[in-house]
Protein backbone atom coordinates (compact mmCIF):
# COMPACT_ATOMS: atom_id res chain seq x y z
CA UNK A 1 0.00 0.00 0.00
CA UNK A 2 1.38 3.37 -0.98
CA UNK A 3 0.04 6.23 1.08
CA UNK A 4 -1.46 8.96 -1.02
CA UNK A 5 -2.17 12.22 0.79
CA UNK A 6 -3.81 15.18 -0.84
CA UNK A 7 -3.71 15.63 -4.60
CA UNK A 8 -0.89 17.87 -5.58
CA UNK A 9 1.34 17.07 -8.50
CA UNK A 10 0.03 18.56 -11.70
CA UNK A 11 2.55 21.14 -12.82
CA UNK A 12 5.42 20.63 -10.45
CA UNK A 13 7.26 18.59 -13.00
CA UNK A 14 7.13 21.07 -15.80
CA UNK A 15 10.68 21.59 -16.96
CA UNK A 16 12.05 18.80 -14.82
CA UNK A 17 15.50 19.25 -16.15
CA UNK A 18 16.50 22.46 -17.77
CA UNK A 19 19.34 22.45 -20.24
CA UNK A 20 22.42 21.09 -18.64
CA UNK A 21 25.48 20.27 -20.61
CA UNK A 22 26.37 16.75 -21.56
CA UNK A 23 30.04 16.09 -21.52
CA UNK A 24 31.63 17.58 -24.57
CA UNK A 25 28.38 17.30 -26.45
CA UNK A 26 28.18 19.68 -29.36
CA UNK A 27 25.37 21.62 -27.73
CA UNK A 28 23.60 21.34 -24.42
CA UNK A 29 20.41 19.43 -24.96
CA UNK A 30 17.13 20.43 -23.44
CA UNK A 31 14.62 18.05 -21.98
CA UNK A 32 11.08 19.39 -22.01
CA UNK A 33 8.55 17.95 -19.62
CA UNK A 34 4.80 18.41 -19.71
CA UNK A 35 2.33 17.23 -17.09
CA UNK A 36 -0.21 14.61 -18.13
CA UNK A 37 -3.48 14.53 -16.21
CA UNK A 38 -4.82 11.08 -15.36
CA UNK A 39 -6.96 9.62 -18.14
CA UNK A 40 -10.65 10.00 -17.32
CA UNK A 41 -10.07 12.65 -14.65
CA UNK A 42 -8.75 12.10 -11.14
CA UNK A 43 -5.66 14.25 -11.15
CA UNK A 44 -2.18 13.37 -10.07
CA UNK A 45 -1.54 12.66 -6.46
CA UNK A 46 1.51 12.72 -4.32
CA UNK A 47 2.78 9.57 -2.72
CA UNK A 48 4.93 9.52 0.36
CA UNK A 49 6.42 6.55 2.07
CA UNK A 50 8.06 6.97 5.43
CA UNK A 51 11.78 7.14 4.75
CA UNK A 52 12.95 7.85 8.26
CA UNK A 53 13.46 4.12 8.57
CA UNK A 54 17.10 3.25 8.12
CA UNK A 55 16.34 0.54 5.65
CA UNK A 56 13.06 0.25 3.81
CA UNK A 57 11.65 -2.98 2.43
CA UNK A 58 12.17 -2.81 -1.34
CA UNK A 59 9.04 -1.55 -3.10
CA UNK A 60 7.74 -4.06 -5.65
CA UNK A 61 7.27 -2.26 -8.94
CA UNK A 62 6.19 -3.43 -12.41
CA UNK A 63 7.90 -1.76 -15.34
CA UNK A 64 6.56 -3.17 -18.61
CA UNK A 65 8.10 -1.96 -21.87
CA UNK A 66 6.83 1.40 -22.97
CA UNK A 67 4.56 0.86 -25.95
CA UNK A 68 5.73 1.93 -29.38
CA UNK A 69 4.88 -0.74 -31.90
CA UNK A 70 7.30 -2.90 -33.86
CA UNK A 71 9.64 -0.25 -35.26
CA UNK A 72 12.25 2.05 -33.72
CA UNK A 73 9.68 3.49 -31.30
CA UNK A 74 9.07 0.04 -29.84
CA UNK A 75 12.80 -0.53 -29.44
CA UNK A 76 13.12 2.84 -27.70
CA UNK A 77 10.25 1.88 -25.37
CA UNK A 78 12.00 -1.37 -24.43
CA UNK A 79 15.36 0.36 -23.95
CA UNK A 80 13.94 3.07 -21.70
CA UNK A 81 12.01 0.59 -19.55
CA UNK A 82 15.23 -1.41 -19.21
CA UNK A 83 17.26 1.56 -17.99
CA UNK A 84 14.56 2.59 -15.49
CA UNK A 85 14.28 -0.94 -14.12
CA UNK A 86 18.07 -1.25 -13.80
CA UNK A 87 18.37 2.09 -11.98
CA UNK A 88 15.65 1.26 -9.48
CA UNK A 89 16.86 -2.30 -8.88
CA UNK A 90 20.44 -1.15 -8.39
CA UNK A 91 19.35 1.21 -5.62
CA UNK A 92 18.29 -1.78 -3.53
CA UNK A 93 15.15 0.12 -2.54
CA UNK A 94 12.96 -1.32 -5.31
CA UNK A 95 12.18 -4.85 -6.43
CA UNK A 96 11.29 -5.03 -10.10
CA UNK A 97 8.66 -7.66 -10.91
CA UNK A 98 9.73 -10.30 -13.43
CA UNK A 99 7.88 -9.57 -16.70
CA UNK A 100 7.03 -13.30 -16.89
CA UNK A 101 4.51 -12.61 -14.11
CA UNK A 102 2.73 -9.93 -16.15
CA UNK A 103 -0.81 -10.80 -17.29
CA UNK A 104 -0.92 -7.81 -19.58
CA UNK A 105 1.61 -5.25 -20.67
CA UNK A 106 0.90 -1.58 -20.70
CA UNK A 107 -2.36 0.26 -20.11
CA UNK A 108 -5.75 -0.58 -21.52
CA UNK A 109 -9.21 1.03 -21.30
CA UNK A 110 -8.32 4.41 -22.74
CA UNK A 111 -4.92 4.64 -21.09
CA UNK A 112 -5.94 3.37 -17.65
CA UNK A 113 -4.34 0.06 -16.64
CA UNK A 114 -6.59 -2.85 -15.73
CA UNK A 115 -5.47 -2.92 -12.11
CA UNK A 116 -7.16 -6.30 -11.54
CA UNK A 117 -4.49 -7.76 -13.81
CA UNK A 118 -1.62 -6.07 -11.96
CA UNK A 119 -2.57 -6.86 -8.37
CA UNK A 120 -1.70 -10.59 -8.62
CA UNK A 121 1.87 -9.72 -9.64
CA UNK A 122 2.49 -8.38 -6.15
CA UNK A 123 3.54 -5.01 -7.54
CA UNK A 124 2.56 -1.92 -5.55
CA UNK A 125 3.48 0.53 -8.27
CA UNK A 126 3.22 0.33 -12.04
CA UNK A 127 4.96 2.33 -14.73
CA UNK A 128 3.30 2.68 -18.12
CA UNK A 129 4.18 4.81 -21.10
CA UNK A 130 4.55 5.34 -24.75
CA UNK A 131 7.69 5.98 -26.78
CA UNK A 132 7.64 7.82 -30.08
CA UNK A 133 10.50 8.55 -32.44
CA UNK A 134 9.56 11.85 -34.05
CA UNK A 135 11.10 13.43 -37.12
CA UNK A 136 14.24 15.52 -36.92
CA UNK A 137 16.01 13.27 -34.45
CA UNK A 138 13.57 13.99 -31.63
CA UNK A 139 11.69 11.65 -29.34
CA UNK A 140 8.60 12.01 -27.19
CA UNK A 141 8.09 9.84 -24.14
CA UNK A 142 4.82 9.64 -22.22
CA UNK A 143 5.09 8.21 -18.80
CA UNK A 144 2.67 7.47 -15.98
CA UNK A 145 3.25 6.10 -12.51
CA UNK A 146 0.34 4.30 -10.85
CA UNK A 147 -0.46 3.15 -7.34
CA UNK A 148 -1.97 -0.26 -8.04
CA UNK A 149 -4.01 -0.90 -4.90
CA UNK A 150 -6.27 2.16 -5.04
CA UNK A 151 -5.78 2.32 -8.79
CA UNK A 152 -4.67 5.93 -8.93
CA UNK A 153 -2.23 7.88 -11.07
CA UNK A 154 0.67 9.26 -9.03
CA UNK A 155 2.50 10.97 -11.85
CA UNK A 156 1.96 11.73 -15.50
CA UNK A 157 4.59 13.47 -17.60
CA UNK A 158 5.48 13.72 -21.27
CA UNK A 159 9.08 14.46 -22.23
CA UNK A 160 10.37 15.74 -25.54
CA UNK A 161 14.07 15.73 -26.33
CA UNK A 162 16.64 14.65 -28.90
CA UNK A 163 17.06 10.94 -29.52
CA UNK A 164 20.68 10.92 -28.36
CA UNK A 165 19.35 11.98 -24.97
CA UNK A 166 17.24 8.85 -24.45
CA UNK A 167 19.24 7.40 -21.59
CA UNK A 168 19.00 10.68 -19.72
CA UNK A 169 15.23 10.69 -20.12
CA UNK A 170 15.13 7.20 -18.62
CA UNK A 171 17.28 8.34 -15.65
CA UNK A 172 15.08 11.41 -15.14
CA UNK A 173 12.01 9.16 -15.11
CA UNK A 174 13.69 6.82 -12.62
CA UNK A 175 14.44 9.85 -10.41
CA UNK A 176 10.78 10.90 -10.57
CA UNK A 177 9.64 7.41 -9.58
CA UNK A 178 12.19 7.28 -6.76
CA UNK A 179 11.13 10.66 -5.42
CA UNK A 180 7.38 10.08 -5.70
CA UNK A 181 7.53 6.71 -3.97
CA UNK A 182 10.25 7.34 -1.39
CA UNK A 183 9.72 11.02 -0.67
CA UNK A 184 13.36 11.97 -1.22
CA UNK A 185 15.23 12.98 -4.34
CA UNK A 186 16.86 10.32 -6.50
CA UNK A 187 20.37 10.31 -7.97
CA UNK A 188 20.05 8.57 -11.34
CA UNK A 189 20.46 11.59 -13.63
CA UNK A 190 24.03 11.99 -12.42
CA UNK A 191 27.56 11.17 -13.51
CA UNK A 192 30.77 10.08 -11.88
CA UNK A 193 34.24 11.39 -12.63
CA UNK A 194 37.11 9.11 -11.71
CA UNK A 195 40.64 8.11 -12.63
CA UNK A 196 40.94 5.26 -15.12
CA UNK A 197 44.19 3.30 -14.93
CA UNK A 198 45.90 0.89 -17.33
CA UNK A 199 49.34 -0.69 -17.59
CA UNK A 200 51.71 -2.30 -15.10
CA UNK A 201 51.77 -0.96 -11.55
CA UNK A 202 55.13 0.76 -11.81
CA UNK A 203 54.16 2.46 -15.06
CA UNK A 204 50.45 3.16 -14.73
CA UNK A 205 48.76 5.32 -17.32
CA UNK A 206 46.10 7.33 -15.51
CA UNK A 207 43.39 9.25 -17.27
CA UNK A 208 40.59 11.50 -16.15
CA UNK A 209 37.34 9.69 -16.99
CA UNK A 210 33.63 10.38 -16.75
CA UNK A 211 30.60 8.13 -16.99
CA UNK A 212 26.91 8.06 -16.14
CA UNK A 213 26.17 6.76 -12.63
CA UNK A 214 25.21 3.40 -14.20
CA UNK A 215 28.69 3.13 -15.81
CA UNK A 216 27.35 3.89 -19.30
CA UNK A 217 28.64 6.58 -21.69
CA UNK A 218 32.18 6.25 -20.40
CA UNK A 219 34.64 8.78 -21.81
CA UNK A 220 38.27 9.53 -21.14
CA UNK A 221 38.93 13.24 -20.83
CA UNK A 222 42.74 13.22 -20.80
CA UNK A 223 45.12 11.17 -22.95
CA UNK A 224 47.32 9.74 -20.21
CA UNK A 225 50.43 11.80 -21.02
CA UNK A 226 50.54 13.01 -17.43
CA UNK A 227 49.56 11.48 -14.13
CA UNK A 228 46.19 12.80 -12.96
CA UNK A 229 44.50 12.32 -9.57
CA UNK A 230 41.51 13.23 -7.37
CA UNK A 231 38.87 14.82 -9.66
CA UNK A 232 35.88 16.63 -8.06
CA UNK A 233 32.67 18.06 -9.55
CA UNK A 234 31.67 21.68 -9.51
CA UNK A 235 28.13 22.13 -8.06
CA UNK A 236 26.80 23.03 -11.52
CA UNK A 237 28.40 19.91 -13.05
CA UNK A 238 30.08 21.85 -15.85
CA UNK A 239 33.63 21.70 -14.57
CA UNK A 240 35.97 19.47 -12.64
CA UNK A 241 38.82 20.32 -10.29
CA UNK A 242 41.61 17.73 -10.39
CA UNK A 243 45.33 17.30 -9.94
CA UNK A 244 47.67 16.91 -12.89
CA UNK A 245 51.43 16.36 -13.16
CA UNK A 246 51.50 18.27 -16.47
CA UNK A 247 55.08 19.38 -17.24
CA UNK A 248 56.16 17.55 -14.09
CA UNK A 249 54.62 20.21 -11.88
CA UNK A 250 51.89 18.62 -9.78
CA UNK A 251 49.14 21.20 -9.43
CA UNK A 252 45.39 21.59 -9.25
CA UNK A 253 43.66 22.33 -12.54
CA UNK A 254 40.12 23.10 -13.60
CA UNK A 255 38.69 21.11 -16.51
CA UNK A 256 35.82 22.77 -18.38
CA UNK A 257 33.49 19.99 -19.55
CA UNK A 258 31.87 22.12 -22.22
CA UNK A 259 35.05 23.29 -23.93
CA UNK A 260 37.47 20.59 -22.79
CA UNK A 261 39.89 23.31 -21.69
CA UNK A 262 42.25 22.86 -18.75
CA UNK A 263 43.54 25.78 -16.69
CA UNK A 264 45.90 25.71 -13.75
CA UNK A 265 44.32 27.05 -10.57
CA UNK A 266 46.37 29.84 -9.03
CA UNK A 267 50.10 30.38 -8.77
CA UNK A 268 51.66 28.72 -5.75
CA UNK A 269 55.27 27.81 -5.07
CA UNK A 270 54.63 24.28 -3.89
CA UNK A 271 52.52 21.39 -5.08
CA UNK A 272 48.76 22.02 -4.89
CA UNK A 273 46.48 19.02 -4.37
CA UNK A 274 43.26 17.65 -2.84
CA UNK A 275 40.87 20.26 -4.31
CA UNK A 276 37.18 20.61 -3.55
CA UNK A 277 34.58 23.20 -4.56
CA UNK A 278 32.55 25.22 -2.08
CA UNK A 279 28.79 24.56 -2.24
CA UNK A 280 28.22 28.00 -3.85
CA UNK A 281 30.66 27.09 -6.62
CA UNK A 282 32.69 30.26 -6.27
CA UNK A 283 35.59 28.94 -4.21
CA UNK A 284 38.01 26.02 -4.28
CA UNK A 285 39.71 24.76 -1.13
CA UNK A 286 42.84 22.66 -1.54
CA UNK A 287 46.16 21.77 0.08
CA UNK A 288 49.44 23.53 -0.72
CA UNK A 289 52.73 21.87 0.16
CA UNK A 290 54.72 24.12 2.43
CA UNK A 291 58.04 23.02 3.91
CA UNK A 292 57.54 19.67 5.57
CA UNK A 293 53.78 20.04 5.75
CA UNK A 294 50.83 21.34 3.81
CA UNK A 295 48.38 24.16 4.43
CA UNK A 296 44.75 24.48 3.40
CA UNK A 297 44.03 27.46 1.20
CA UNK A 298 40.88 28.86 -0.38
CA UNK A 299 40.91 30.63 -3.73
CA UNK A 300 38.38 31.81 -6.27
CA UNK A 301 38.05 29.93 -9.55
CA UNK A 302 40.31 32.39 -11.31
CA UNK A 303 43.04 31.50 -8.82
CA UNK A 304 42.84 34.93 -7.20
CA UNK A 305 42.33 36.04 -3.63
CA UNK A 306 44.09 33.03 -2.11
CA UNK A 307 43.59 32.83 1.65
CA UNK A 308 45.44 30.49 3.97
CA UNK A 309 42.97 28.69 6.24
CA UNK A 310 45.46 26.58 8.21
CA UNK A 311 49.10 27.12 9.08
CA UNK A 312 49.94 24.36 11.53
CA UNK A 313 53.27 23.22 10.06
CA UNK A 314 51.75 19.73 9.97
CA UNK A 315 50.13 17.95 7.04
CA UNK A 316 46.69 19.53 6.69
CA UNK A 317 44.95 17.95 3.74
CA UNK A 318 41.65 16.83 2.13
CA UNK A 319 39.43 19.81 2.96
CA UNK A 320 35.67 19.48 2.36
CA UNK A 321 32.94 22.06 2.98
CA UNK A 322 29.74 21.35 4.90
CA UNK A 323 26.76 21.66 2.52
CA UNK A 324 25.75 24.99 4.11
CA UNK A 325 29.25 26.31 3.47
CA UNK A 326 29.91 27.36 7.06
CA UNK A 327 32.41 24.65 8.05
CA UNK A 328 35.30 22.68 6.58
CA UNK A 329 36.30 19.16 7.55
CA UNK A 330 39.90 18.17 6.85
CA UNK A 331 42.53 15.61 7.81
CA UNK A 332 45.67 16.56 9.74
CA UNK A 333 48.57 14.89 11.54
CA UNK A 334 49.08 17.94 13.77
CA UNK A 335 48.39 15.78 16.83
CA UNK A 336 50.73 12.94 15.73
CA UNK A 337 48.62 10.48 13.77
CA UNK A 338 46.31 11.63 11.01
CA UNK A 339 42.81 12.52 12.28
CA UNK A 340 39.74 14.42 11.11
CA UNK A 341 39.16 18.00 12.25
CA UNK A 342 36.37 20.50 11.64
CA UNK A 343 36.89 24.26 11.50
CA UNK A 344 34.96 27.34 10.40
CA UNK A 345 35.05 28.01 6.68
CA UNK A 346 37.20 31.10 7.29
CA UNK A 347 39.78 28.99 9.12
CA UNK A 348 40.57 28.79 12.81
CA UNK A 349 38.99 26.97 15.71
CA UNK A 350 39.82 23.52 14.38
CA UNK A 351 38.37 20.78 16.56
CA UNK A 352 39.28 17.12 16.32
CA UNK A 353 36.25 14.85 15.77
CA UNK A 354 37.73 11.36 15.13
CA UNK A 355 38.79 9.35 18.17
CA UNK A 356 38.52 5.70 17.16
CA UNK A 357 41.35 3.28 16.63
CA UNK A 358 43.68 4.06 13.74
CA UNK A 359 44.16 6.93 11.31
CA UNK A 360 41.30 8.84 9.73
CA UNK A 361 41.48 10.36 6.27
CA UNK A 362 39.49 11.82 3.35
CA UNK A 363 36.54 13.37 5.24
CA UNK A 364 33.58 14.03 2.93
CA UNK A 365 30.47 15.82 4.10
CA UNK A 366 27.10 14.32 3.14
CA UNK A 367 24.92 16.59 0.98
CA UNK A 368 22.30 16.11 3.74
CA UNK A 369 24.75 17.59 6.24
CA UNK A 370 24.18 14.90 8.84
CA UNK A 371 27.20 12.67 8.20
CA UNK A 372 30.89 12.81 7.37
CA UNK A 373 32.25 9.82 5.46
CA UNK A 374 35.90 8.85 5.89
CA UNK A 375 38.66 6.34 5.19
CA UNK A 376 40.10 4.64 8.29
CA UNK A 377 43.23 2.49 8.46
CA UNK A 378 45.96 1.33 10.78
CA UNK A 379 45.29 0.86 14.47
CA UNK A 380 44.19 -2.61 15.48
CA UNK A 381 43.29 -3.77 12.00
CA UNK A 382 45.37 -4.32 8.91
CA UNK A 383 42.37 -3.58 6.69
CA UNK A 384 41.16 -0.20 5.48
CA UNK A 385 37.56 0.81 6.13
CA UNK A 386 35.01 3.23 4.76
CA UNK A 387 32.71 4.64 7.43
CA UNK A 388 30.51 7.52 8.46
CA UNK A 389 30.21 9.60 11.63
CA UNK A 390 28.19 12.62 12.66
CA UNK A 391 29.95 15.98 12.27
CA UNK A 392 30.52 16.06 16.04
CA UNK A 393 32.33 12.71 15.81
CA UNK A 394 29.57 10.64 17.37
CA UNK A 395 27.82 7.60 15.90
CA UNK A 396 30.76 6.15 13.96
CA UNK A 397 29.70 3.25 11.71
CA UNK A 398 31.86 1.20 9.34
CA UNK A 399 30.17 0.44 6.01
CA UNK A 400 32.82 -1.55 4.19
CA UNK A 401 36.29 -2.91 4.86
CA UNK A 402 39.00 -4.53 2.79
CA UNK A 403 42.67 -4.73 1.93
CA UNK A 404 42.39 -1.21 0.58
CA UNK A 405 39.19 0.80 0.39
CA UNK A 406 39.54 4.55 0.03
CA UNK A 407 38.02 7.85 -0.97
CA UNK A 408 34.24 7.92 -0.35
CA UNK A 409 31.97 10.24 -2.35
CA UNK A 410 28.25 10.77 -1.75
CA UNK A 411 25.42 10.51 -4.25
CA UNK A 412 23.61 13.87 -4.26
CA UNK A 413 20.79 12.59 -2.05
CA UNK A 414 23.25 11.36 0.58
CA UNK A 415 21.81 7.85 0.41
CA UNK A 416 24.64 6.05 -1.43
CA UNK A 417 28.41 6.21 -1.18
CA UNK A 418 30.94 5.30 -3.83
CA UNK A 419 34.60 4.56 -3.09
CA UNK A 420 37.35 2.46 -4.59
CA UNK A 421 38.67 -0.93 -3.64
CA UNK A 422 42.09 -2.37 -4.46
CA UNK A 423 42.96 -6.03 -4.16
CA UNK A 424 46.52 -6.77 -3.13
CA UNK A 425 49.36 -7.87 -5.35
CA UNK A 426 49.96 -11.56 -4.77
CA UNK A 427 53.59 -11.80 -5.76
CA UNK A 428 56.73 -9.77 -6.41
CA UNK A 429 55.35 -8.71 -9.80
CA UNK A 430 52.16 -7.42 -8.24
CA UNK A 431 50.02 -10.09 -9.93
CA UNK A 432 46.43 -9.96 -8.71
CA UNK A 433 46.39 -6.23 -8.12
CA UNK A 434 43.21 -4.53 -9.29
CA UNK A 435 41.29 -1.38 -8.51
CA UNK A 436 37.52 -0.96 -8.83
CA UNK A 437 34.78 1.53 -7.98
CA UNK A 438 32.21 0.23 -5.49
CA UNK A 439 28.91 1.72 -4.31
CA UNK A 440 27.18 0.98 -1.01
CA UNK A 441 24.00 2.18 0.70
CA UNK A 442 24.70 4.33 3.78
CA UNK A 443 23.14 1.59 5.88
CA UNK A 444 26.01 -0.66 4.72
CA UNK A 445 24.04 -2.99 2.47
CA UNK A 446 23.74 -3.34 -1.32
CA UNK A 447 27.45 -3.18 -2.18
CA UNK A 448 27.98 -3.15 -5.96
CA UNK A 449 31.02 -2.93 -8.23
CA UNK A 450 30.77 -0.39 -11.05
CA UNK A 451 31.43 -1.71 -14.56
CA UNK A 452 34.28 0.59 -15.52
CA UNK A 453 36.18 -0.35 -18.70
CA UNK A 454 39.57 -0.14 -16.93
CA UNK A 455 40.91 -0.19 -13.40
CA UNK A 456 39.47 2.80 -11.57
CA UNK A 457 39.99 4.97 -8.50
CA UNK A 458 39.17 8.42 -7.08
CA UNK A 459 35.43 8.56 -7.86
CA UNK A 460 33.48 11.80 -7.40
CA UNK A 461 29.71 11.78 -7.78
CA UNK A 462 28.09 14.73 -9.56
CA UNK A 463 25.23 16.70 -8.07
CA UNK A 464 21.80 16.50 -9.73
CA UNK A 465 21.22 19.09 -12.47
CA UNK A 466 20.20 22.44 -11.05
Amino acid at each position, binding site marked *: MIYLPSPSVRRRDLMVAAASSLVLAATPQAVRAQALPAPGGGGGQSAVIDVSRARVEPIPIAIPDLTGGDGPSGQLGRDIAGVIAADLARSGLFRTIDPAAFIQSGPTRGGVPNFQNWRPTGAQALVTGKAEVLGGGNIRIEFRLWDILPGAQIQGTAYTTTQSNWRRIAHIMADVIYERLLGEKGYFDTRVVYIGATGPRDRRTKRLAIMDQDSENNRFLTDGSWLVLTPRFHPTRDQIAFMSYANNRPRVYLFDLTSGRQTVLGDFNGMTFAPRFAPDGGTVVM*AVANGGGSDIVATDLGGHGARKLTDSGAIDVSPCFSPDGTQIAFASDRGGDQQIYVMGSGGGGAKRISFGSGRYATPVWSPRGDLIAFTRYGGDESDFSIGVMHPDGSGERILSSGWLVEGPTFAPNGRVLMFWRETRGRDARGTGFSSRLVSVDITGFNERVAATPTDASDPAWSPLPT
Partner: protein
Amino acid sequence: MNIKILGAFAAVALLAACADQKSDAAGAGTSHSIVPGSQEDLVANVGDRVFYDFNKSALRADGKATLDKQAAWLKQYASNNVQIAGNCDERGTTEYNLALGQRRANAASSYLKAKGVAAARMTTISYGKDRPTAMGSNEQAWAQNRNATTSVR
Protein backbone atom coordinates in the same frame (compact mmCIF):
# COMPACT_ATOMS: atom_id res chain seq x y z
CA MET B 1 66.93 -30.06 10.88
CA ASN B 2 66.13 -26.41 11.44
CA ILE B 3 69.75 -25.53 11.66
CA LYS B 4 70.49 -27.32 8.42
CA ILE B 5 67.78 -25.33 6.65
CA LEU B 6 69.17 -22.10 8.04
CA GLY B 7 72.59 -23.11 6.79
CA ALA B 8 71.25 -23.68 3.31
CA PHE B 9 69.66 -20.23 3.28
CA ALA B 10 72.87 -18.60 4.48
CA ALA B 11 74.82 -20.28 1.69
CA VAL B 12 72.39 -18.95 -0.92
CA ALA B 13 72.65 -15.47 0.53
CA LEU B 14 76.43 -15.55 0.35
CA LEU B 15 76.37 -16.71 -3.26
CA ALA B 16 73.99 -13.92 -4.15
CA ALA B 17 76.28 -11.38 -2.50
CA CYS B 18 79.25 -12.72 -4.49
CA ALA B 19 77.32 -12.47 -7.71
CA ASP B 20 76.41 -8.88 -6.95
CA GLN B 21 79.99 -7.95 -6.23
CA LYS B 22 81.10 -9.54 -9.45
CA SER B 23 78.63 -7.55 -11.50
CA ASP B 24 79.63 -4.36 -9.67
CA ALA B 25 83.24 -5.02 -10.46
CA ALA B 26 82.41 -5.66 -14.08
CA GLY B 27 80.36 -2.48 -14.24
CA ALA B 28 83.21 -0.38 -12.93
CA GLY B 29 85.59 -1.96 -15.39
CA THR B 30 86.31 -1.07 -18.99
CA SER B 31 84.14 -3.72 -20.66
CA HIS B 32 80.94 -1.82 -19.74
CA SER B 33 81.82 1.79 -19.18
CA ILE B 34 79.59 3.98 -17.09
CA VAL B 35 79.87 7.63 -17.94
CA PRO B 36 81.15 9.40 -14.80
CA GLY B 37 78.63 11.92 -13.53
CA SER B 38 75.72 10.18 -15.25
CA GLN B 39 72.52 8.83 -13.67
CA GLU B 40 73.94 5.34 -14.18
CA ASP B 41 77.04 6.39 -12.26
CA LEU B 42 74.86 7.77 -9.45
CA VAL B 43 72.85 4.55 -9.22
CA ALA B 44 75.81 2.17 -9.46
CA ASN B 45 78.49 3.94 -7.46
CA VAL B 46 76.73 6.34 -5.10
CA GLY B 47 73.16 5.19 -4.48
CA ASP B 48 70.24 7.14 -5.92
CA ARG B 49 67.74 6.58 -3.12
CA VAL B 50 67.27 6.71 0.62
CA PHE B 51 64.60 4.76 2.52
CA TYR B 52 62.20 5.70 5.28
CA ASP B 53 60.29 3.94 8.04
CA PHE B 54 56.52 3.56 7.82
CA ASN B 55 54.69 6.89 7.95
CA LYS B 56 57.99 8.66 8.74
CA SER B 57 60.09 11.22 6.95
CA ALA B 58 63.06 11.27 9.35
CA LEU B 59 66.33 10.25 7.69
CA ARG B 60 67.85 7.04 9.00
CA ALA B 61 71.58 6.54 9.45
CA ASP B 62 71.83 4.52 6.23
CA GLY B 63 69.99 7.29 4.40
CA LYS B 64 72.32 9.96 5.72
CA ALA B 65 75.33 7.90 4.62
CA THR B 66 73.90 7.69 1.11
CA LEU B 67 73.13 11.40 1.03
CA ASP B 68 76.69 12.19 2.21
CA LYS B 69 77.95 10.31 -0.84
CA GLN B 70 75.42 12.08 -3.07
CA ALA B 71 76.59 15.47 -1.74
CA ALA B 72 80.21 14.62 -2.51
CA TRP B 73 79.24 13.35 -5.96
CA LEU B 74 77.28 16.52 -6.68
CA LYS B 75 80.27 18.57 -5.60
CA GLN B 76 82.40 16.62 -8.07
CA TYR B 77 79.90 17.02 -10.90
CA ALA B 78 78.94 20.60 -10.25
CA SER B 79 77.00 21.04 -13.48
CA ASN B 80 74.51 18.34 -12.52
CA ASN B 81 71.09 19.43 -11.36
CA VAL B 82 68.87 16.88 -9.69
CA GLN B 83 65.24 16.13 -8.96
CA ILE B 84 64.43 14.43 -5.67
CA ALA B 85 61.19 12.46 -5.80
CA GLY B 86 59.43 11.40 -2.59
CA ASN B 87 57.53 8.11 -2.63
CA CYS B 88 55.30 6.15 -0.26
CA ASP B 89 54.10 2.58 0.16
CA GLU B 90 50.53 1.60 -0.67
CA ARG B 91 49.34 1.54 2.96
CA GLY B 92 48.04 5.09 3.09
CA THR B 93 45.57 7.32 1.30
CA THR B 94 46.41 9.12 -1.95
CA GLU B 95 46.15 12.67 -0.65
CA TYR B 96 47.99 12.15 2.62
CA ASN B 97 50.71 10.24 0.79
CA LEU B 98 51.21 13.12 -1.62
CA ALA B 99 52.05 15.30 1.39
CA LEU B 100 54.15 12.59 3.04
CA GLY B 101 56.13 12.01 -0.17
CA GLN B 102 56.79 15.73 -0.39
CA ARG B 103 57.96 15.71 3.22
CA ARG B 104 60.40 12.87 2.41
CA ALA B 105 61.73 14.66 -0.67
CA ASN B 106 62.17 17.82 1.42
CA ALA B 107 64.02 15.92 4.16
CA ALA B 108 66.55 14.59 1.63
CA SER B 109 66.89 17.92 -0.14
CA SER B 110 67.39 19.83 3.15
CA TYR B 111 70.09 17.38 4.18
CA LEU B 112 71.92 17.82 0.87
CA LYS B 113 71.62 21.58 1.20
CA ALA B 114 73.15 21.41 4.68
CA LYS B 115 75.99 19.42 3.12
CA GLY B 116 76.69 22.24 0.70
CA VAL B 117 74.59 21.45 -2.37
CA ALA B 118 73.10 24.69 -3.68
CA ALA B 119 69.31 24.79 -3.33
CA ALA B 120 69.05 26.08 -6.91
CA ARG B 121 70.44 22.77 -8.20
CA MET B 122 67.66 20.71 -6.62
CA THR B 123 63.95 20.37 -7.28
CA THR B 124 61.55 18.18 -5.34
CA ILE B 125 58.41 16.35 -6.37
CA SER B 126 56.09 13.90 -4.66
CA TYR B 127 54.41 10.94 -6.33
CA GLY B 128 52.67 9.74 -3.19
CA LYS B 129 51.91 6.04 -3.62
CA ASP B 130 51.74 6.26 -7.41
CA ARG B 131 55.26 5.23 -8.39
CA PRO B 132 56.08 1.97 -6.60
CA THR B 133 59.33 0.31 -7.67
CA ALA B 134 58.59 -2.97 -5.90
CA MET B 135 55.28 -4.46 -7.00
CA GLY B 136 54.43 -6.83 -4.16
CA SER B 137 51.97 -6.16 -1.35
CA ASN B 138 54.25 -7.05 1.56
CA GLU B 139 56.60 -5.35 3.99
CA GLN B 140 59.65 -6.06 1.80
CA ALA B 141 58.10 -4.24 -1.14
CA TRP B 142 56.77 -1.40 1.02
CA ALA B 143 60.23 -0.80 2.53
CA GLN B 144 61.58 -0.35 -1.00
CA ASN B 145 58.73 1.97 -1.97
CA ARG B 146 59.17 4.37 0.98
CA ASN B 147 61.97 6.41 -0.50
CA ALA B 148 63.36 9.64 -1.87
CA THR B 149 64.98 9.05 -5.25
CA THR B 150 67.53 11.41 -6.76
CA SER B 151 67.75 11.70 -10.52
CA VAL B 152 69.92 13.84 -12.77
CA ARG B 153 67.92 16.40 -14.72
